């Protein structure tokens, strides 16, 4: 593997880890769509800062972008506070405005620089190795790796320092306010963190796919655990796996790296959604089927016990009566009868069903349990 490939994979990993970490709290705070809005809004900050410094590699761009991200959040909250608009509508109103203004500005004034629409939308992670950071003549390797590495460190520090405070404000805003933890300030600090992360991710994966990297890995982790710390670790694992698998897929199919990474987050989510041992769709279906058979068998045994030795036994305790009385299908009635036969609960004489002594005991136990 070449050094160029390694630096692309390295950057993809840094981006996905940072995004997954922020994303855990976005998902838990029900702010998933804010990440999409922020990633679109930061473009305005990048464009405006560029007009001031005329340098695409200036750190001022990151600052400007972060500020517009936070400003967008602030504006949506003013709109919500006015009670004229709901939260989703406010977000939908502010960020397209920011984004469209920046697209127009790029068209008008920056047509000849590389801030073109394609790279804005999908990023240009493949160019990573070619933009190098040099300080006093020393070549320190790709600049993006340093920037994104710094952003990841910032994320880890922020979340470790404010772990308890973030948890409390996320779970119970009211108590946090009462205990004096300033949930509103913490919210904006976190939004600034998300904005900085989005700026870093923007260069690699563009504005559209940031949302996939921020939201899907935590959502996948959420399917597997109900503890916060394991959720963060799993989220990082899924983020990292998506970027590595995504890169390989892009390499073999010769398609967009960012696109492949985002697709991979979705594929991993789907796999976990289907196969998770505790909450997976397939496991749930199997458990449901199992319970249905056990429950129906118990119903059958009770029916046989209740009518045993009565005048109507000959008509009641028959397979055909199960179909009429219990509203079972012919096929289902037969499968339950076969199951009960197999377990030794009943004997079958043509249509008639008789309890074995074992089955009688079982039926009595079930009734006692229910009572």
């Amino acid at each position, binding site marked *: 593997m070449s050094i160029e490939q390694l630096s692309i994979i390295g950057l993809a990993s840094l981006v996905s880890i940072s995004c997954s970490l922020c994303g855990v709290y976005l998902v838990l705070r029900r702010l998933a769509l804010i990440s999409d809005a922020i990633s679109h809004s930061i473009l305005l900050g990048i464009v405006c800062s560029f007009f001031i410094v005329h340098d695409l590699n200036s750190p001022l761009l990151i600052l400007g972008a972060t500020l517009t991200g936070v400003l967008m959040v602030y504006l949506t909250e003013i709109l919500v506070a006015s009670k004229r608009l709901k939260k989703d509508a406010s977000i939908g109103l502010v960020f397209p405005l920011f984004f469209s203004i920046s697209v127009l500005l790029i068209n008008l004034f920056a047509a000849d620089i590389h801030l073109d629409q394609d790279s804005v939308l999908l990023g240009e992670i493949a160019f990573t190795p070619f933009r190098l950071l040099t300080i006093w003549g020393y070549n320190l390797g790709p600049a993006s790796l340093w920037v994104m590495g710094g952003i990841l460190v910032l994320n880890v520090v922020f979340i470790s320092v404010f772990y308890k405070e973030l948890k409390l404000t996320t779970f119970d805003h009211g108590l946090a306010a*009462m205990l004096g933890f300033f949930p509103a300030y913490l919210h904006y600090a976190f939004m600034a963190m998300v904005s900085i992360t989005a700026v870093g991710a923007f260069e690699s994966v563009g504005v559209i796919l940031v949302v996939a990297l921020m939201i899907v890995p935590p959502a996948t982790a959420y399917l597997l655990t109900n503890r916060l710390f394991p959720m963060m670790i799993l989220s990082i694992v899924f983020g990292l796996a998506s970027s590595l698998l995504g890169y390989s897929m892009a390499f073999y199919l010769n398609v967009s790296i960012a696109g492949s990474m985002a697709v991979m987050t979705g594929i991993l989510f789907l796999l976990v959604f289907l196969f998770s041992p505790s909450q997976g769709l397939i496991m749930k279906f199997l458990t449901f089927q199992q319970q249905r058979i056990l429950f129906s068998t118990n119903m059958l045994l009770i029916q046989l016990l209740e009518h045993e030795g009565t005048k109507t036994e000959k008509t009641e305790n028959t397979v055909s009566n199960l179909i009429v009385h219990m509203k079972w299908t012919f096929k289902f009635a037969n499968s339950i009868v076969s199951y009960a036969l197999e377990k030794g609960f009943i004997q079958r004489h043509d249509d008639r069903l008789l309890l074995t002594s074992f089955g009688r005991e079982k039926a009595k136990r079930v009734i006692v349990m229910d009572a």
Partner: protein
Amino acid sequence: MVKPDRLTDLECAVVVQDLTVAYKEKPVLWDIDLKIPKGVLLAIVGPNGAGKTTLLRSIMGMIKPAAGNVAIFGQSIAAKKRSIGYMPQRGTVDWDFPTDALDVVMMGRYGHIGWFKRPSVNDKKLSLEALDRVGMADFASRPLNQLSGGQQQRVFLARALVQDADLYFMDEPFVGVDAVTEQAIIELLKELRNQSKTVVVVHHDLQTLADYFDWVSLLNVRQIAYGSVADVLTPENLKITYGGRSSFLMHNPVIT
């Protein structure tokens, strides 16, 4: 029992003067005066939309009033935050949050722990004790989304207990719990009162009012009546508070 207007400020845990709260120019609470003496169990009672939760929240400084003053033990809310314990309504938080019962109880200690520091062994010990007091010791490591409504309510109560406060505010602690849990909760509240702590509870059930509480405030945007349960709970006062429905309410145990 002392009449509320005879109380001196020194005897009071909470003194509310001329409190008015408005949402979009519409008053939710209108000119409330309330002196809550130390060491009582006080119920705030009123119909839906009467401003009960708003009153609690404005006393605790979570809502900025349009007018009026609140003093807690003679000082500002900010100065006395540590002396307040709060149990919000169960529905105000997301019970799918990925954590367990013990961790939620421990959040009640965060005010004492302060910024940046992690809960200590002692905080954990206190939280486990509180879970034990509410009969939830066996559920300490149970994930939140596997707790029933009554269990969630007990966890919230335990969280309020570990705040180790002198003044407690509880918003509908009896909603959605069975009779056994209700008894357990009221025993704990009475125990707090007997330790001369002040407990303010938003309550709904007029039938149990006299058994559970010493004092009651009847609220419907304005404060209709305030004082000892025996003085306040008259048919006339209830009629003003609830409109024409009060006779029905007095004879019906279930009121929501």
